[in-house]
């Protein structure tokens, strides 16, 4: 276990007593994977870097594996973020390290098919597997990305492996960014042993070692511009206990600005700042990997809350021509997440909760954004400056939701489940293949079937055509000479894999080019 050393040069909101104005070469908004690796690359090249993070700075001593602390503290909107109609639950990180502090460690590179699609359909240039390879190689070394050992597969993941094997579906062991993992299964709550190589343990201290200064609890309200340049970022210092502005403000003047606040918050900041958007594309085409879940009760202990999550995955159904593909993973299931996610209420909900020790859970992540009929999510504002977020559902999504749920049910039944419980309202109970057909009849209308997202992408897409892209293929804003976006919002579609390595690789590529250009 590491000593859990603090990041040097990190300032918390509570340490800022009065308004401050700072000058820097580079101001970065957000300390997730994009902002952290950009901070490191640019600071290492000699730039004076300032990182502004709205979330708090939280480290191992606080990560006591308690959902009641972690979700409200480490996630956006205290883990209550959702589409306006609550039909899609949005799990998105919000602390120093961003999503990397709470993600489930899966570390896969962008699929070549996705990169090819961007080049062909969205005019992205130079973002190829070859160009990204050296960056990925380095990132994977720094984060100790490696494939788990056989003995690290818990019963929950074993059910996916067994079921897929019996049905002849392809599956793979998923690489993870951990060192000396002790398999608590609590990755989503902040790693209690600093095994997960999150940004607050890797690229942020690396950046700080080169002089980068990181401000926690500082929410950027607005960017100011003059002509084709952004001149300053104005931030409110937050009182963390109340999650409201504490009074003091922090203003950063810089030569270059990089937005790394994540899909949803980066587009919101662009909108809030009133930056030109003549084609009305900012905040549109937001992709989520809309995620369905399926639970199954076994006659043996599964303990889905312990052991490494997502050691086994399946991309067998990722490519379904003309339809929305999906991939399968195995989430951790601690009681709060289970209590929130399980469908139904009253005795049926209670029964599902009492089965938790014998429950295996699968998730299917729909690979959205590749069909012409898809519009994805739209980020905007509703009254009082509040975030508005909607997601458009077409027939292709409904078809994929049903196929994904049927596939998960079949896998669990093939693995020996006594019954499968779906996340429909009310839930279906399935015991045989004949029962599985009932999924075709059940409503998948909003709030008739649980949908989640832990992967937010798009909203400020990259590409050479300013009519469909906010930033170019180097991630520079089409209309501003010193404004960049380096986070998941630049992806023109969803990825088909968990996003952290894609964000790190692409941001590393772009930040290195920016550092070279001086």
């Amino acid at each position, binding site marked *: 276990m590491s000593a859990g050393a603090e990041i040097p040069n990190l300032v918390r909101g509570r340490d800022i007593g009065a308004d401050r104005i700072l000058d820097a070469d580079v101001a970065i908004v957000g300390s997730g994977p994009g902002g952290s690796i950009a901070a490191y690359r640019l600071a290492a090249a000699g730039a004076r870097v300032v990182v502004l993070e709205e979330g708090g700075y939280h480290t191992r001593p606080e990560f006591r594996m308690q959902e009641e602390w972690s979700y409200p503290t480490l996630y956006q909107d205290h883990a209550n973020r959702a589409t306006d109609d609550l039909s899609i639950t949005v799990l998105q990180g919000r602390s120093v390290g961003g999503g990397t502090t709470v993600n489930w460690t899966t570390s896969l590179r962008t699929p070549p098919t996705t990169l090819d699609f961007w080049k062909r359909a969205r005019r992205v240039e130079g973002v190829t597997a070859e160009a990204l390879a050296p960056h990925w190689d380095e990132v994977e070394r720094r984060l100790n990305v490696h494939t788990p050992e056989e003995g690290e597969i818990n019963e929950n993941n074993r059910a996916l492996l067994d079921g897929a094997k019996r049905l002849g579906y392809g599956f793979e062991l998923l690489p993870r960014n951990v060192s000396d993992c*002790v398999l608590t299964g609590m990755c989503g709550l902040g790693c209690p042993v600093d095994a997960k190589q999150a940004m607050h343990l890797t690229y942020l201290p690396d950046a700080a070692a080169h002089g980068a200064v990181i401000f926690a609890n500082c929410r950027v309200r607005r960017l100011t511009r003059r002509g084709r340049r952004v001149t300053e970022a104005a931030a409110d210092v937050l009182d963390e206990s109340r999650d409201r502005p504490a009074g003091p403000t922090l203003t950063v003047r810089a030569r270059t600005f990089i937005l790394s606040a994540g899909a949803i918050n980066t587009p919101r900041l662009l909108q809030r700042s009133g930056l030109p958007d003549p084609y009305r594309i900012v905040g549109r085409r937001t992709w989520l990997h809309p995620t369905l879940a399926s639970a199954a009760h076994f006659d043996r202990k599964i303990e889905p809350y312990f052991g490494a999550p997502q050691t086994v995955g399946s991309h067998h159904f990722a490519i379904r021509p003309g339809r929305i593909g999906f991939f399968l993973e195995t989430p951790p299931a601690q009681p709060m997440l289970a*209590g929130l996610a399980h469908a139904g209420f009253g005795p049926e909900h209670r029964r599902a909760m*009492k089965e938790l020790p014998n429950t295996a859970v699968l998730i299917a992540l729909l690979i959205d954004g590749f069909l012409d009929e898809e519009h994805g999510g739209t980020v905007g504002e*509703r009254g009082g400056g509040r975030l508005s977020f909607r997601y458009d559902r077409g027939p292709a999504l409904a078809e994929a939701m049903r196929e994904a749920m049927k596939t998960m049910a079949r896998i669990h039944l093939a693995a020996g489940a006594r019954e499968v419980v779906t996340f429909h309202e009310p839930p279906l109970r399935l015991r045989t293949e004949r029962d599985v057909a009932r999924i075709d009849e059940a409503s998948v*209308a909003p*709030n008739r079937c649980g949908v989640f997202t832990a992967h937010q992408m798009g909203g400020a897409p990259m590409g050479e055509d300013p009519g469909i892209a906010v930033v170019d293929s180097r991630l520079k804003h089409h209309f501003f000479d010193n404004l960049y976006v380096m986070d998941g919002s630049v992806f023109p579609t969803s990825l088909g894999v968990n996003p952290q390595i894609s964000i790190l690789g692409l941001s590393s590529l772009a930040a290195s080019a920016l550092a070279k250009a001086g």
Partner: protein
Amino acid sequence: MVSREDPVSGITRRQLVRRGIVGSLLFAAAGATAAFWWPTRRRRPRPGLRVLDEREAAILSAVADTVLAIEPGVPSADAVDVVGRVDALLARSPGDVQREFARLLHLFENGTTGLITATGWTSFTAAAPASREARLRAWQTSRISLFRTGFQAMKRLCGACYYSSPVSWAAIGYPGPPDLA
């Protein structure tokens, strides 16, 4: 992108479906049930609660009991202080969210909502357990999107706030996080 039209007039069904819960609830309250709308009686907050008033706390407590289906011998929603936990969450949320949630509670309590969902016209807190269940079931599967949204808000909050408490764990066989010492 920003919609600012009057939430209670000239609204199409499609717009209703696409609106946030605030607009939808106003629509339901003012548009459909104005004549029966229960006036919100603000009372002195009970000690410890920062956002919810007495009446809202009572409604939430009744909803939590129905959602969680606590059996004999299992810690009740009050034993876990579901109301206090929801209140603490609300205290850190924006004012709009607090007001929206209060409106939702009043809509649950409102006997007229029972009429719309054909589950009787008594208030939620005064209804018998079976009637409360029927009311929640009607919201869960309603063809009106705002009721389904309201059901999800209640179910998720109650589920999350109850099962995140260590007090609830023994009864569902969760041994708690591993001991790393």
